[in-house]
Structures are given as C-alpha cells and as structure tokens.
C-alpha cells in the first residue's frame, strides 16, 4: 500500500491549506470556496487515524433483484478479476455501484434525448434505441443466464470462471443475438460501468476503501499538486476521498 513519507504529502486539512497558500486575496476576490471554508467553525482533525471497521450500510440493493445482482457481480469480477495485483470488481463493490446508478438518473436516461421517432441509423449516429439503461440491463442479465443455461446447463454465476469468460466473449462479439439491443452494446455498457465502479469516488458504493485508486496509485481528491507537478520521481500518496472534504 502506498505510504507517504514527505511532510507535504500528508493529507492536509482543507482550511489549513487555504489559510497557508495565500488563496484568500483582497479586493474583488470571487474565490468563494476559500471564503466559505474559512468561515466554517474548526472541526477536530485527526489525520492518519484509522477508521474503525463498521458495517457498510451502502451495500444493499436499490434496483436489482438478488438474482440479477449475483449475475452482475459475477460478470464484473470477470471483467476486472481479483489476482495477485489486488482486489477485483467484486471486492471493490462494483456491482453495488451499478445497482445504485441504475436506480437514479442514469438508469432512466433522464438527461438524454429520448423522444421519437426512433429509427435504426448509422453507427456514427450513436444509440438510437428506445430502451433505457435499466431495461437494457434487465434484458442483458436475463440473457446471460439464458445463454449459460443453454450452453452449460447452469446459471451464469454457477458456471466456472473460464465458462463465464466464454459467455462474456460471446456477448462482446455479438455471437449471441438479442432483440431490441445488441449483445455487444450491453457488454460495452457492463464493461464501462464496471470500470466506473472500480474508480469512482467511494461515495457511489464502489471503489471500496479507495482500494481501486490504490491499485493505480491514484491519490483521489487532493487539494493541490503544486509541489508534485515538477518532480521527476513518482510520488505515491495515500488517497483522499470526497468524504475527507466533508469531514
């Protein structure tokens, strides 16, 4: 695990940081975050104190049925498997992330143009279907199970990892034919959201304990890199999350 050794690489309290970097200027200053932070009352800071392991109340389902969840969790794990390098998608909570995302705006394509008329279109014109993401997942998950059943006589999460890979490959290459949405389009969405679930801020339910970030030595949400930016040596830092901003 990454450990910081230089003083400036320690997590810095936001207020402390802002006070010490001369960010607050006179005159017509409009840097409002700086101002509002300085007005906030002091909260006790305990950098380095390890949080006591607690139940993760985030790990419950908002959208998937337990059966759907099992399929998705197994598929995510094949996309990003646990190995000697570290945790995989399952341990990182990627399937919970996807569940939570499908429950909200993204699952409903709420900020996308979903008015008709619907025509098939060229590949260069992008997605033209009428299905929302949550519906695409419903179909895709069902078909992962169907295809596993017909090929191996078991549900997706019951077959071996090698068999799961073969099933996913069949989806990725459109060897499996679905109606309403292509198997490869579903696979692409599954892959992309798995990656999101590994690396998005832990506030969304994946990237558990920021361990996804640690895999890549990504420091998450830091206040500043002014001291790092010119350095020739790679600087490892203990990551910070948005929660560290709030507390």
């Amino acid at each position: 695990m990454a450990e910081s050794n230089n003083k400036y690489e320690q997590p810095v309290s936001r207020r402390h940081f802002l006070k010490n970097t001369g960010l607050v200027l006179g005159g017509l200053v409009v840097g409002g975050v700086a101002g509002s932070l300085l007005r906030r009352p002091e909260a006790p800071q305990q950098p380095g104190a390890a949080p006591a392991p607690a139940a993760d109340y985030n790990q419950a389902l908002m959208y998937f049925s337990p059966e759907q969840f099992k399929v998705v969790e197994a598929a995510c794990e094949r996309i990003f498997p646990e190995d000697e390098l570290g945790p995989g998608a399952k341990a990182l909570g990627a399937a919970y992330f996807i569940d939570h995302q499908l429950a909200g705006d993204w699952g409903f394509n709420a900020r996308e143009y979903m008015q008709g008329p619907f025509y098939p279109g060229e590949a260069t014109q992008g997605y033209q279907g009428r299905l929302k993401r949550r519906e695409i997942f419903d179909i895709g998950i069902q078909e992962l199970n169907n295809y596993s059943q017909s090929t191996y006589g078991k549900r997706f999460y019951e077959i071996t990892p090698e068999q799961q890979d073969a099933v996913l490959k069949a989806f990725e290459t459109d060897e499996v034919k679905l109606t309403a949405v292509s198997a490869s389009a579903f696979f692409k969405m599954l892959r992309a959201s798995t990656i999101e679930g590994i690396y998005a801020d832990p506030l969304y339910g994946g990237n558990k304990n920021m361990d996804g970030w640690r895999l890549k030595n990504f420091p998450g949400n830091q206040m500043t890199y002014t001291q790092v930016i010119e350095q020739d040596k790679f600087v490892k830092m203990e990551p910070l999350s948005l929660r560290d901003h709030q507390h």
Partner: protein
Amino acid sequence: MARKLPKVDVVIVGVGWGGGIIASELTKQGLTVVGLERGKERKTEDYFMVHDELRYALRYEMMQDLSKETITFRSNTNVRALPMRSYGSFLMGTGLGGAGVHWNGHTFRFLPYDFEIRSKTIERYGEKKIPEGMTLQDWGITYDELEPYFDKFEQMAGISGAENPLGGKRSKPYPTPPMKMTPSMKLFEEAAKKLNLHPYPLPSANLSEAYTNPDGISRAACQYCGFCERFGCEYGAKADPVVTVIPVAKKTGKFEIRTHSHVRRILHTGNKATGVLYTDVTTGEEIEQPADIVVLTSYVFNNARLLLLSKLGRPYDPNTGKGVIGKNYCYQVMRGGATGFFEDREFNNYAGAGALGMVLDDYNGDNFDHSNLNFLHGANISVSQYGQRPIANNTVPEGTPSWGKEFKAASLKYANRTINVGAQGASLPFRHHFLDLDPTYKDVFGDPLMRITFDFEEQDRQLAAFMSEKCGEIAREMGASKVEVRGKLGPYDITPYQSTHNTGGVIMGASPETSAVNNYLQMWDVENVFVVGASAFAHNSGYNPTGTMGALSYRAAEGILKYHKSGGILV
C-alpha cells in the same frame, strides 16, 4: 399573450464568455443590459465537491440537459439526420458562464494566415490548390487588426505563457509567466528542439501566479489539481466568465442577469429587431424583452438556430451555395496523434491542469510548405498534462484485451507510464457541410432542433495521417520504449468525445454575398443584431477557438458601442 417588459438598451442571449464580455464592456460605458441565460446561476462555492470524476466528467453535471434540447446529425444529405441522444463528440455548456466554466483554458491566437486564408493560399500555391467544393474564405479582418483585441482578452483572463516563435506579432507579452514545467513537457521540449522544431508553453487560462487584471479582479494561482476540464475551478484560478467579466458588469449596476430564461425568438419588424421572446422555465411564462440592440451569444448552434427560427437573415442553401445562415460549419480534426509507452519510467500523471503543456506550430497553418501535400492548413502538436483521472484513462498497448486479467495488469502498469503526443487539426469548410433546422425532431418547447450535416473529407484524412507521423517522430525522440501512432481517420462519428470546438454557421466576411456578419459581428441584413461566438469563424484553425472568439467578442463590443452612438452598418 407574452408579458411585455420595459425596453432596455441591449439584450444578450446566453451568458458565457461571449455574453459576459459584451456585458462588461457595454455596462462600463453606461448602457443598460439584460442577460438572459437558460441555465442556472453559478458561483465558485458550488465546486466544494468538484473532484468527482463520475459526476462531472462522465455524467456531465455542468452540461446542457439533452432531454430538453439536442442537435441532430447526418453525414450527408442522403442520410436521415438523427438526434444526438447522449453525449459524445462535443459537450454543450449551460448555466451562468456557459462552457467557459468547464473549459480547459488553452488560449491561442489564430495565425495571420487564418484570417486571409483564401488570398494567402492562392498567393503561394495558386487557385488550383483549393480543392473542389472547399468554400475557403477570408474573414474580412486581418490578424493585425485583431491584435489589440487578442491582447485585451489575454489581459482580462490573465493568460500564462511565453511567445509563440511561429505566431503572429504581439504588442505585449502575456500578462503572467508560463505554467510550471512537468517532466513530460521537458521531454517534449528537448525532443522537439532536437528535431529543429519550435516548442513553447501552451498559453494557459489556469493562471501560473496570483493576478489582478485591468478591471481590478484578483484571482489565485492554479493548484494543478487535475480536475479542470469538465469541472469548475474551486479556487477561481481558471479564468471563467463568472470570476472575471460577469462581476465587473454586475458592479456597474447596469447588468441584470435573468437565469432560467430560455430565449425562443428574436422579434423584428422590417429589417430591425425589436427584442426577444423568452420562456421563464421555472413558471412556463412567455415574456417579451424589448431592446434597441439584440446580441446573440448562445454558442454556435443556438446562434444559427435562433436566426433560422426567427426568420432573420438568408438561410444557406447547399445546392446553390447561396444564402449565409448555416454556412461553413466546421469542427476539428483530433485523430492524428501518438502514444508513447515508457517501460522504465513513471510520471505523476494524476496531477495536472486543464491547460498545462508544451506545443509547437511548425506544422500549423501555412508554417510549412504544402506544395507536395494533398491538404491545406495543419495542426498544433502538443504534450499536455491534464491529470489522468482513473475512469477515463485506461490506456493499454494495442492487442491487449479490453477486459479480464490481462487488461487489469496492463491498465494498472501503464497508468503512469504513458505520454500522449496529440495533434489538433484545422477543419476547413465545404459546400456540403452546413447547419439547418431539422424537419422532424423538436426541443422541449416544440421548436425544431439544429441539424448538422458534416463528415470528414480527404483533406482531413491526409492531414491526420501526416500529423500522426510527426507526433510519432516526437514521441520516439522523447525516449518512449514503444510508440503507437493513430493516423487513420474514419468517418465523422458523433459518439466519441473529440472537442467542443464547433464553428461557423453565422460567418464573418467582407461581403454580404458570402457572409452573415461583418467584422464587428454585426448582421449585414439586420443592423441592430450582433452575433457573437465561434459561429463567426469562416473555418476552424489548428487551435482551440476561445482566444480568437474572445478577441472577436471585444471587437463586437466596440462595434455595439459605435452602433449605439451612430447607428447604421459599421463597415
């Protein structure tokens, strides 16, 4: 019936860079200005939780809500245009400050060649060099005429940089010194110099040091936080309209901003505008705002669309080449580039700033000989360090599977071991690339969407192939263990992000026959309407647009003040 409000001097449609600059310049001179902005209010305090890649970069927190309004696209007139249902190729801004809030801050000046591109091309290579169908036009202004306005924009924004050895003449140096140099920038600089090229620091709106601009606005220095483009700056370091021009306009007491105000028509009688009609999207009420002067600053698409919806100006007809509104839509050629993989070196790729890099213009504009090349213009070549956020950046060598154990290993290994040498190519106009109203798809109010008809041409493919070779050469010289070159430009595809550098549609020029606005961005056909933005570009250069668009905004402000005094067509 719409509720009619008291008349003001000027009404501005959209409050981004264009709207903010116009508002500050006019209110400083005492004009009363109303700014109508369809989106919400924005302030620096909003960015407390901004270091959130998912929310801002992948879920487009700050961008236009496509469920309400989007564009439609087709590659040519034989294809049915279909709506851009989700984001991809470009990201339209909304809310106070517009896209200026979540831009990178690359702030270039187009080259002298750009403004006189037709004349200069013919002068050097003869008329035959311009391919059939390419509607190349001079801009009706020269670089030297525009220079003072470039300077104004740069002083206002506090651009950090050092002189471009191959650029146009400057009256003043950049107001702040260049940004810090990262190891990858140094590698690029050394490699480029060895290849006898002319690298210089990317002109940046991120601010290398604390700066107070001529309007008395102070901003803090950039923290290289790595969450810049697609994000708002929590320090107010990045120059954006909300922390620069808008407070200046507000301080005069002459600028009223109305957010949640979606403008739907420009009202007019005879050949003069009388005001605008807008909808208060919080109540649904229709409101008429009369004004002596109407300024469109609603970005390329809505600038052209509002004119077409309001039946102002002459719509462009690609069959005859006549008409002007919708003409010369251009974009950017982003495909030429190379990735260097470094086996034995790690870079602090997680750190960075929106406009942090080294660039060169040896292959941009007409800075190199095109006699034996099958394309015109060129590209700016660069190495830049934005901060490689982990969801979007998973570069693996060619041939690596895109998922599974091998993908995991390679994406982790190379997370901090790749450097990208990129080319940002010019996009030149063709007769059959244009904007018009879609016959089928409508926005949330029932108004037709803007339709884009556009594709890449042989010009673009040749340019991309040439540039990727050059980028590859530089990446190899930088010492990469392995270099992959991306030179093949397919058809224009609306799905992958390329750049939000859409241009044209309401282009400027010397004659009403071939252009919609004059060099004050005043409409030839409707003298009290000014159309401000990259919509005025007669083509797009091998650069990001906003430096030039900002300069033109200052020029337009001057024109509006003149018009307010004396009236009439200004040139």
